[in-house]
């Protein structure tokens, strides 16, 4: 019986706010009838709540100043967008290859320095893992590509978010497999691809990043190039021994495949 659940402070607060269900309200009323000191306190709290509302009501009734009109704010942002340098550079790179529409710019521009720095450490780990495993002759991967379904399912479960191994045939790379890696106490996944020339690239993914989406971030360490980004709570890093212009279309292709898979409405992009 719900009525037998003892009265708690949450019930009393919900009583003050008038948010109790009818059955619970009855139980709280019965309790207060037996506890006059508490009843008196609750009565005061209801008065104070009302007093605060009354005292502040004038502010919400004031006409809204024109500087807070959304149309004016949107127009002002168009005139002088708050552009952050790193994100802006990435947006320019996109525009340069004609791969992105203006409407997407806002996403890149709005990304935060904070998540960028989180992305840096993920990129460091991803590049380190890339170096170790791409040069491995005997065991470059833990689970080979002929068990792709199992590989993806297993890594998704360990990383804690649904992953996909993107199809990079159009870029000349095929999946050779993947492995599970530790990263700052969490599980990370590495997918490895190879082209006909024997060049390998890796896609690294781990959960993290509170932002829904960030811009691409490029870095190069000792001949290994990497693009990293955060999308839907996952940090991704694609790394290869290639230069920026070679890697960018691959990063772009991966990003677009995830977008298309995650959001059917954007599939046409």
């Amino acid at each position, binding site marked *: 019986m719900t009525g037998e659940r003892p009265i708690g*402070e*949450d019930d*009393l*607060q*919900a009583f*003050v*706010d008038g*948010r109790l269900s009818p059955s619970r309200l009855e139980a709280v009323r019965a309790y207060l009838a037996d506890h006059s000191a508490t009843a008196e*306190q609750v009565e*005061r*709290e209801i008065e*104070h*709540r009302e*007093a*605060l*509302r009354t*005292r*502040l*009501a004038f*502010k*919400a*009734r*004031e006409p*809204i*100043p024109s*500087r*807070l*009109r*959304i*149309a004016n*704010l*949107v127009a*002002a*942002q168009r005139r002088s*967008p*708050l552009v952050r340098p790193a994100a802006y550079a990435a947006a320019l790179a996109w525009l340069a290859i004609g791969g992105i529409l203006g409407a997407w710019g*806002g*996403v890149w*521009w*709005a990304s935060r320095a904070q998540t960028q720095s989180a992305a840096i450490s993920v990129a460091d780990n991803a590049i380190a893992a890339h170096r170790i495993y791409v040069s491995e002759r005997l065991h470059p991967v833990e689970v080979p590509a002929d068990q792709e379904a199992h590989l993806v399912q297993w890594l998704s479960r360990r990383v804690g978010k649904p992953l996909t191994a993107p199809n990079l045939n159009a870029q000349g790379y095929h999946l050779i497999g993947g492995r599970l890696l530790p990263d700052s106490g969490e599980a990370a996944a590495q997918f490895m691809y190879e082209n006909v020339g024997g060049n390998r690239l890796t896609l690294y993914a781990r959960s993290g990043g509170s*932002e*829904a*989406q960030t811009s691409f971030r490029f870095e190069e360490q000792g001949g290994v190039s990497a693009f990293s980004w955060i999308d839907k709570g996952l940090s991704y890093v694609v790394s290869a021994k290639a230069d920026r212009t070679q890697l960018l279309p691959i990063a772009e292709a991966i990003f677009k495949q995830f977008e298309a898979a995650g959001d059917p409405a954007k599939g046409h992009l």
Partner: protein
Amino acid sequence: MDEIASLLEPQIPGLRRYAWALLRDGEAADDLVQDTLERAISRWSQRRDGDLKAWLFAIQRNLFINGLRRRKARGTRVGEEALNDVPAPGMSPESHAGLHDVLKGLDALPEEQRSILLLVGVEDLSYEQAAQVLDIPLGTVMSRLSRARARLRDFMETGRGAVLRRVK
């Protein structure tokens, strides 16, 4: 853009009221609301399908807190207007009569308690929305609300509490 305006504008009166209650200065409050709206517009595409009201109040509250931290780091600076708010000791007729302005009571509380009283009691956020704004579990919302109301009650009855905050 019309969609943004039609969703955001109904929230502005509440955001202005919450900002004013925190800052008690009309210009500064509207500056805070403007910052909040600008940020909301620039991040519109990142907004998840969650609760718009909770999202906006969370942005505003975080901006307010960050502003407080910056001011603390710089050392407190108060405008002339703030001086008018400080009651002359023993001179207020209200305090003699035991009639305290509920806003003075609000001032006596730490920010986290002020915010929860305002968000739940004035802005009518659900407990779940308040938990989202303050980034705390639902259970903590209820106990914080309970503590805040008890403390406000205590202040309104005894008049103690406000002085401590002014001195700090």
